[in-house]
């Protein structure tokens, strides 16, 4: 059991799902026939309502031509179990329109938890992003660093469980990682060869993050660890108690810098996929377009929500576009071929809304970590079973049978201007 918690995030609901699996998609079965149910103002599905995504409603129509098509195809009435969730995600195939996005060098994502998460994500066939700074901070694992913290340990744990034809590993590199040549290291490592040869290795260029748009990665370190990393990172003694703030630089980007970096990745690593991660910046649509035109296989937008690292208090509540607004701007400008989003995704509704607004898949960050923390053996697996059930029910309720069939007609909001307002 870890000491992980996530205030402001529906932590207990996520942990419940990690314990109970698909059953947690419903109220406790013992209440059936005895408790009458209805929308609850305090229910966790509406937690916070900080993001316009939360205020959207999913709106099934009465007439469902796509259900008729599925009926004809099957020769029987379709139900939610007929929804096919497998989805192409950034050059990979995922078992569902979901990937795992929370594995940096931070304490929360480190150690056994990082390994347990890697193992479960692998067994589920979900693409997994290994975050920035793991190599400069924790090492690679080839020359004797503790395997549980190092990148190689996570890569192996994931690959050992991975079913054929599913999933893939995405390795981030930040400005400081460039010094450690993380991509070059992985690209030439025997442990990564099976992924490379089966087309299941990607590199993600990180231009920013949702928790603190415009800033680089941050962690809190004890003074001794900080001393070891001192010449590679900005170390700031803001806490005055022996612990220090370690900051990565966010990196400088212009359209030309982004374009050329993506091209260089394709040039230097022709057998790896290229992902680009954007923070929810006001020019997110332009950045997504530049990345896609330069040849990125996926563009990820990290909503202004939270994370596994550290951020100044002023940021999460006040900085960055809401995820729904990012999606609106990107789809209005012509979306990239594969748009991925993350940001407080933990249940099917928020996921389906994101997909309806143009995302191909959603990333699990804190939810994946908490589910794994609840049960390192099978917490994420059970959590994902519950999410898959919800996705199937919600998508089939819309008269559709694949995530890719969702569109903007499937959601409604009085405040969200571009959504057709229930005409």
């Amino acid at each position, binding site marked *: 059991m870890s000491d992980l918690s996530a205030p402001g995030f529906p932590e207990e609901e996520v942990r419940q799902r990690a314990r109970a699996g698909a059953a947690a998609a419903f109220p406790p079965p013992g209440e059936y026939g005895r408790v009458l149910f209805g929308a609850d103002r305090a229910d966790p599905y509406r937690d916070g309502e900080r993001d316009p995504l939360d205020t959207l409603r999913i709106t099934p129509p009465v007439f469902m031509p796509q259900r008729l098509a599925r009926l004809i195809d099957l020769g029987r009435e379709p139900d939610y179990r007929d929804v096919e969730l497998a989805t192409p995600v950034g050059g990979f195939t995922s078992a569902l329109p979901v990937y795992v996005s929370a594995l940096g060098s931070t304490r929360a994502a480190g150690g056994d938890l990082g390994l347990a998460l890697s193992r479960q994500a692998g067994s589920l066939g979900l693409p997994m992003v290994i975050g920035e700074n793991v190599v400069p901070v924790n090492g690679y694992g080839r020359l004797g660093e503790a395997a549980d913290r190092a990148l190689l340990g996570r890569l192996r744990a994931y690959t050992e469980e991975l079913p054929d034809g599913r999933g893939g590993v995405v390795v981030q590199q930040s400005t400081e990682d460039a*010094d450690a*040549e993380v991509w*070059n290291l992985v690209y*030439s490592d025997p442990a990564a060869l099976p992924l490379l040869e089966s087309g299941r290795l990607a590199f993600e260029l990180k231009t920013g993050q949702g928790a603190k748009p415009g800033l680089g990665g941050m962690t809190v370190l004890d003074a001794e660890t900080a001393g070891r990393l001192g010449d590679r990172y900005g170390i700031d003694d803001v806490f005055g108690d022996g612990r220090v703030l370690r900051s990565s630089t966010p990196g400088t980007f212009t359209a030309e810098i982004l374009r050329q*970096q993506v*091209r*260089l990745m394709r040039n*230097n*690593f*022709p057998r790896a996929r290229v992902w680009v991660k954007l923070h929810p910046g006001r020019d997110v649509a332009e950045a997504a377009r530049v990345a896609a035109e330069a040849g990125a296989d996926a563009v990820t937008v990290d909503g202004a929500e939270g994370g596994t690292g550290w951020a100044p208090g002023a940021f999460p509540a006040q900085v960055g576009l809401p995820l729904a607004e990012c999606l609106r701007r990107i789809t209005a400008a012509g979306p990239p071929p594969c748009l991925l989003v993350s940001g407080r995704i933990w249940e099917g509704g928020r996921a389906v809304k994101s997909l309806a607004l143009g995302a191909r898949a959603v990333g699990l960050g804190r939810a994946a970590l908490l589910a794994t923390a609840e049960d390192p053996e099978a917490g994420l697996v059970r959590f994902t079973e519950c999410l898959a059930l919800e996705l199937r029910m919600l998508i089939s309720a819309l008269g559709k049978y694949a995530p890719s069939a969702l569109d903007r007609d499937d959601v409604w909001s009085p405040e969200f201007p571009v959504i057709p307002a229930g005409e």
Partner: protein
Amino acid sequence: MTTDGPTAPAPLPDPGRHLTAPATRSALRIQHRLLAAAREFLREQGFTELLPPVIGPVTDPGSRGSKQVDVDFYGHRYKLMTSAILYKQASLLAFDKIFCVAPNVRLEPLETAGTSRHLAEFHQLDVEVAGASRDDAVRLVEELVVHMVDSVVRELPKDFAELGRDVGAFTELLKGSFGRMRHADAVAELRGLGHPQSPDAELDWAGEALLSAQRDRPFFVTDYPKGSRGFYDREHPEQPGLLRNFDLIAAEGYGELCSGSQRTNDYAEIVTRMRETGENPQKYRWYLDLVREGVPGSAGFGIGVERLTRYVAGLDAVWQASAFPKLAGVVSP
């Protein structure tokens, strides 16, 4: 999925057998003569030979997909040289025309073990000329290669016979006048041949071999796009996005022999280009300080010594042109 050629690693013979084989001796004699001829030629032209450093706080990042080797230098992370480029530019503060025979180590991707043309440790004949343009460098390479091949063909007929290499293969080469084509034209030709070459990337290995197989003498490919090369290649002032650089590619399918360019020596442009190539300018401190103070504009190139030997000697694989070959992922002396 893109593939970069065969992936089966080539077997290496044990060092005793390799070093005593008549073919190895002939190949190494040809290499020795090629280098001797290059030194004669360059000294004649007023070049000074320098001894290149082996380690430094930073090295050339512009090598496709390969990993640098870290060295613990009294607690500081140093690198084995992947190329001498940064030192070549700096050396022009001492002399206007310099050359060196520089050892390079690049931990190439594993699939290169079977390409017949990659070594993890190799040597470059590195040349840099202050005040020169890209076209000056192209002319110099051409004259240099003609001189080297002419010398070796005249002086080592027995070794060519031992290797079964018909020196008639160099009849066209020895006339000079290597062909020139722009990268965009090479892409168009490859696509015409049914090869899916990306217009934004370096020519892939299979594509290079394909073009090479169509030619009877070496040829230059010029004007590579940004995003395919290191930050030090100068961008065309009138054609943004294209670089004033070149590769020399051998005939008969032997592929690339040499890369070169006119260099960027403008501080702000170098910092910007570093970002475009994903580099952290902070680690290039000594180099950037020097550039800020001013280094001469220049052009230069590096000829792969083992690759040139392989081509001239007509060897199946580049490792045969090394006394102690190192292939990606293969443990050897």
